[in-house]
């Protein structure tokens, strides 16, 4: 439905006449990334922004940092598309913003209209603190139930799968066990793995393991991994880069870091493996919620729908290498589709219990 039409002519430009609904000519190719991974993709399915009401007005957006910074590009594109739309954004670490919103909410009202976070735990925390307003059904309905809050307080916008980056020169995919439980016994990985236990996504992975297998087993696994020899890093991009460098044979990291390494360093010896059906296959999400007390609810809802549009999802898939949340958009490159991943069945809101995980990690001597 005309997604690729690139709007209705007009050379866009910064002088886009006021009052017109379309601003600069923003086409799908603007949303879509470039490079070998993106070449020859099909047109995305789903609701196009062409079919959505125009965004107009000022929105205050709290934007969870980390790679969430990438999302700013999406915001910019939307702002270009809709000259009457401005998103005042505030970029900070997701968990800090969650804390801030909770404090603000307790003190009266938060200046934020929308919170966009890179992890479900932060979304859950804000939701659990009763700081959210309801989301539009149009948005919720496009996203699988697993990737939204059961009460509809937040909705996923991009998926982040746990994965095992590995150095293709040192080991082959077959050396990598298919469940995380087997890692401590894998001879090929002895003394050559890395993880980033202070990184939120890793902690979510451990939380998931606790939810699935209980604290005791998680504890033994953590200890076994340490006995097996594992190096600690401070974030997973570095874990992934170290795999490409050959400093590590394999590591625990979110999937998109490997794709980023690949696209930045052509022909680097890095491969990506997934475990199956266990915490190691967890798919966590970036998501959105509308903050309690906003006087901009309509705009916020419309904004959420835009983020779940075909173009925006294509953006997440091709620019951030995340898993798109709507069925019409495929993940980038040869990534398995999200349902092929066989993620564990977990209520993502429960990932908010990071505290227990931190205790456990500390008791295990990992943190």
């Amino acid at each position, binding site marked *: 439905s005309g997604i690729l039409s690139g709007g209705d002519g007009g050379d866009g430009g910064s002088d886009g006449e006021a009052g017109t609904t379309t601003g600069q000519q923003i086409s799908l190719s603007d949303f879509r990334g470039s490079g070998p991974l993106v070449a020859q993709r099909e047109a995305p399915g789903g609701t196009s922004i062409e079919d959505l009401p125009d965004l107009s007005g000022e929105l205050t957006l709290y934007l969870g940092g980390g790679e969430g910074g990438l999302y700013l590009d999406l915001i910019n594109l939307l702002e270009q598309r809709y000259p009457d739309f401005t998103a005042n954004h505030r970029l900070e670490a997701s968990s800090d913003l969650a804390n801030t919103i909770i404090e603000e909410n307790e003190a*009266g009202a938060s200046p934020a209209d929308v919170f966009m976070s890179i992890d479900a735990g932060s979304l859950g925390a804000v939701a659990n603190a009763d700081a959210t307003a309801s989301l539009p059904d149009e948005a919720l309905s496009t996203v699988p139930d697993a990737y939204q809050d059961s009460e509809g307080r937040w909705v996923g916008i991009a998926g982040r799968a746990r994965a095992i980056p590995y150095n293709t020169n040192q080991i082959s995919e077959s050396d990598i066990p298919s469940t995380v439980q087997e890692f401590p016994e894998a001879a090929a990985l002895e003394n050559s793995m890395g993880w980033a236990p*202070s990184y939120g996504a890793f902690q979510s992975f451990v939380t998931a393991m606790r939810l699935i297998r209980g604290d005791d087993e998680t504890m033994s696994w953590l200890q076994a991994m340490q006995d097996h020899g594992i190096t600690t890093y401070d974030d997973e991009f570095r874990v992934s880069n170290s795999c490409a460098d050959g400093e590590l044979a394999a590591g625990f990291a979110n999937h998109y870091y490997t794709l*980023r390494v690949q696209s930045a360093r052509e022909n680097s010896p890095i491969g990506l493996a997934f475990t199956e059906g266990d915490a190691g296959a967890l798919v966590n999400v970036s998501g959105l919620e509308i903050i309690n007390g906003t006087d901009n609810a309509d705009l916020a809802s419309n904004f959420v729908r835009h983020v779940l549009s075909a173009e925006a999802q294509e953006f997440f898939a091709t620019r951030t290498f995340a898993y798109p949340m709507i069925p019409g958009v495929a993940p980038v490159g040869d990534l398995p589709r999200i349902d092929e991943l066989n993620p564990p069945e977990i209520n993502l809101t429960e990932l908010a219990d990071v505290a227990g995980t931190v205790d456990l990690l500390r008791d295990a001597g990992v943190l």
Partner: protein
Amino acid sequence: MGTKDRYERLREQATTSERDSSPHTLLAVVSLAISLLLLAPLVWVFLRAGEIEFARAVELLTSDTTVSVTLNTLALVTGVTVASILIGVPLAILTAQTDLPFKRFWTITSALPLVVPSYIGAFAFVSAFGPRGVLADLLSPLGIEQIPTIYGLHGAILVLTLFTYPYVFLTTRASLLSFDGTVVEAARTLNHTRWEAFRRVTLPQIAPGIAAGALLVALYALSDFGTPAIMQYDVFTRMIYNEFGARRLDYASVLSMLLLVMALGILAVESRLSAGRDGAYVSSGSRRPGLIRLGYWKVPALLFCGAIATLCLVLPIGILLQWLLRSGTGYSAGGFAFEAAYAWNSVGLAAAAAAICVVAALPIAYLSARGTSGVSSLPERATYVGYAVPGVVLGLALVYLGLRYVPFLYQSVILLVFAYVIRFLPQAVGTTESSILQVDPGYIEAARSLGYHPLSAFRKVVLPLVAPGIAAGAALVFLTTMKELPATLMLRPTGFETFVTYIWLVQGAGYYGQAAVPALVLVGLSGLSMLVILRREDTS
């Protein structure tokens, strides 16, 4: 002049003789007020910590992890402090008291590492000296497969030292600049070489300056998170950080309190070490000590300065440039344009923080340096507490308190600058105080006997003499504010970006190459500002 009016004039001057008001009373009140204002936000830490069950708190504080991490932290703090003194003091001497060529240049390069955000510095080191870093790549063709690992305590000490020694450098240099050289001459005529004279005469007298810098280094090392994390060394702040990640503010607060206790410990050690005998540091002369002629030592001295500048500036800048030049999404694609406004925002904030800190530091430092009673250095000590609190803790505290008590200031530049003042005031206090200690109190007496109110006497006599110390303090606050991240992120107005928030943004997004541009501008602009500050120091 008629005589009758002589004494009438005297009578008119003060119709009532005040009752026993010590000249320090007003000073003490002002200082106390400032320090209370600065400490107030920390109340939040206690409020939050109070929410945790006592037994649980004890358990947390006595867990094996806590103990081992505490020991790690102390090892790091000690190592970094000692190493910073070993680098900072010689550099200060070289740039302040020798005929080293290009002194001004070296002065700036020696101070600048302070502006390199520690995560950039640490990244640079790992990229250069890590297992698969530049150095390893260079060496592997030579058959050297294994280089000693950069990770661990020694790496953390190395990197932290290289980016914090400027504290010691600047405070020591300021002390040296206000140092009376006649006593060095005296020592030399008593057959002491320059070096022996330095050790026995200069060193003990600039000790407060060195101690002030070392204290800042120690507290910085205590509260830094980024560098130890990157260097894969477990320290206390990481525990706190994890609690924040887990959104357990109460736990984080309890741990922060332990951090504060450690900070108090460091403060106590410093007080003991630098508490001299009364008035011991006062030299009244004003003769600048002659420059040490380096002679054959000129070459090693230049090499030393060059090596430090290479490690602290050239290396990170080189790595940044490398990032910039590398292509690919991971490094430079993407498009957040860097706007000049970010630079002005940073400079404006840093200048405001430096100005306020310098003004607020004066009464506190003066009271501490000149006060007679045991409690007169309490406000000074108190200012250091804020410095030891991690930026995130302070940020949250101000979010919490700001929202409740000064909602109109919430997410305003004012609250942000206030946070900087809390964090960085001791940098100005320390340098100012050590300079004041070196000013002969006789000058104030002379001015007062010439009819000057103590305040104007201070302004006209002490102030110009302590200008080097004040300038150093301003430089410290300025540089550290330029790179401050956590509090800036949390407290800035929405949409207000600075150098560091921008760098943080693009780095988080993986655009390392783009981080290079603002980082380079940050270093360049800070260098220019240093020039301005140092010029002021020279004219006084």
